[in-house]
């Protein structure tokens, strides 16, 4: 780990440890502070921290404020009926959460997706990843007190929402990716519109970099903060941008290419420093790379053809089980589905990136300053609703 700001990191850790070792967690001198659920910097999530002066010495996450029992609900509906409610946890990234589900169900039921359908599915997945990442970036901006960075991505997100709207008919929860392909073909002029939007968007990304990532104050606040080493990242099993920021070039699209991703030429973006800045910057690099992927998808897409495999009205397969994942905006998103041969799944387990990343929160918060809490917490790419399912 040859970080440039290593000295800063070491200093921060040393300082943090100095404070932590002096007290036990239930010392009377500590102030217990509740962050969430009604906190501007928490989301639908709560964690309790204990403060010694300006340093956090204890952290206990308590998710579950938006737990809806998605996994139990799946057992009561058949494979197709499950799609609309499964995308509720991440309405901004709903294409990916149904993508993974569709892959798993296709494997259970045994259907092949037509080639054009695979391209459109990958395209919605990339578009939705942009929508999610922009939203995430906006909130990261306001968490650090940068209000312009809140407004700009929120506005530019509309571009992709418009595209998805014209493609799927819904702004956020599309219910568009289904087992066997996608619901509809792309509309007239979609390719040109998308290319135009991407060209504009890439210009905007440069501006984001200038106003946000190259801002010296932002650098001061995020560099060397919340250091997650490569070893710790692997041990804690984090995923997505958090993992890639710590120097592990892991991307499901690369290591386990689903659909047509093995025909796409792209690079896994990662950094080695493992601090908050890297965790904030890797999604940004991903967005840039994603524009590249979208261009290739549009180029290589077959001109015509089926977009959906013929599916029996109430599909069912033989008894068995499967575990399929895709790369979502928050990392690997896996479905473990057990089928007992009936049209309804016997057991569905959704393994989401948020739920895996939040394990790193106590690890990173303890020993850091209170002011670093938002930058560490939101850089973990944690979506509370998805984690609760």
């Amino acid at each position: 780990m040859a970080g440039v700001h290593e000295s800063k990191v070491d200093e921060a850790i040393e300082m943090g440890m100095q404070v932590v070792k002096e007290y036990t967690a239930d010392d009377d001198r500590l102030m217990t502070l509740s962050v969430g659920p009604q906190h501007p910097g928490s989301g639908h999530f709560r964690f309790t921290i204990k403060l010694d002066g300006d340093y956090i010495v204890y952290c206990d996450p308590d998710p579950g404020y938006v737990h809806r029992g998605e996994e139990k609900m799946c057992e009561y509906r058949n494979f197709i009926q499950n799609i609309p409610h499964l995308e509720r946890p991440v309405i901004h990234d709903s294409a990916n959460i149904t993508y993974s589900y569709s892959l798993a169900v296709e494997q259970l039921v045994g259907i092949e997706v037509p080639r054009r359908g695979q391209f459109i599915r990958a395209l919605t997945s990339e578009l939705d990843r942009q929508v999610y990442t922009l939203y995430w970036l906006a909130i990261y901006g306001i968490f650090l007190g940068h209000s312009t960075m809140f407004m700009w991505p929120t506005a530019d997100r509309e571009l992709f929402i418009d595209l998805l709207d014209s493609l799927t008919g819904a702004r956020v929860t599309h219910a568009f990716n289904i087992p066997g392909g996608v619901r509809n073909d792309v509309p007239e002029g979609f390719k040109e519109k998308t290319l135009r939007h991407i060209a504009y968007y890439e210009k905007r990304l440069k501006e984001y970099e200038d106003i946000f990532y190259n801002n010296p104050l932002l650098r001061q606040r995020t560099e060397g903060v919340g250091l997650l080493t490569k070893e710790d990242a692997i041990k804690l099993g984090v995923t997505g941008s958090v993992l890639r920021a710590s120097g592990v070039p892991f991307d499901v699209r690369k290591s386990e290419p689903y659909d047509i991703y093995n025909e796409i030429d792209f690079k896994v973006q990662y950094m080695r420093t493992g601090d908050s800045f890297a965790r904030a910057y890797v999604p940004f690099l991903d967005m840039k790379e994603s524009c590249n992927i979208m261009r290739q998808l549009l180029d290589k897409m077959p001109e015509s053809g089926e977009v959906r495999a013929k599916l029996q009205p109430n599909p069912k397969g033989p008894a068995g089980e499967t575990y399929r994942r895709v790369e979502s905006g928050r990392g690997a998103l896996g479905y473990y589905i057990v089928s007992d041969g009936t049209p309804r799944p016997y057991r569905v387990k959704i393994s989401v990136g948020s739920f895996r990343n939040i394990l790193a929160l106590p690890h990173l918060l303890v020993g850091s300053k209170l002011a670093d809490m938002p930058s560490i917490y939101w850089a973990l790419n944690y979506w509370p609703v998805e984690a609760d399912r």
Partner: protein
Amino acid sequence: MSQDQDNAAEKTNKKPENSDIVNRTEPSAKLASVQKPVTKPAPSTNTLTKKEAEPPAFEKAIVDKLVNEFGNKINVIYIRPLRMKIMVEPRDVLAIAIFLRDNMGFDHAESVAGTDYPKDNQIEVIYHLGSYGTETMEGHIMALATRTSRNDARLPSLIDVFRSVEYHERETFEMLGVYFEGHPRNERFLLPEDWADIPPLRREFRIKGR
């Protein structure tokens, strides 16, 4: 096209001066092998039964190594491209998990899922183990399954082997009532604080109105 990409790569290398970013396709001896996954066979959408007829070689080798070590303690359920599942007894799970971590390169758990089987009066807990450290095995998932009785569901916790199972095991405890021995906090996690019912993912728990 490729030139453009190279330019882009240079730019990403350069722009934030002190943040050393590396692209994965950078020509270096250490990273050369990672080009391979592009041609890796995807777990394609064939039917399950057809797949199990002829297990792929790489995955077969992994499982064979495990079987050689532990013999008939391991019950191989299936071997598919990138996916393997083995069933073990609760008393062996800890030793096998340590072996998987230390000798096979599976360094983290992606998910821990519990499935209730009232017909067999058993609960199956399945750990999906993945590997970040070994570059040839990034796509592979080893499913380590074990079964315990429904009436007195107790299993050894794998938290000392895989740190990443902490919240997943805690969730399995509250959702299925499996007590993980050795886990520091077998406590409520996602459910409401005043939850006073049976664990909700057991089959006999019915959603109201259904």
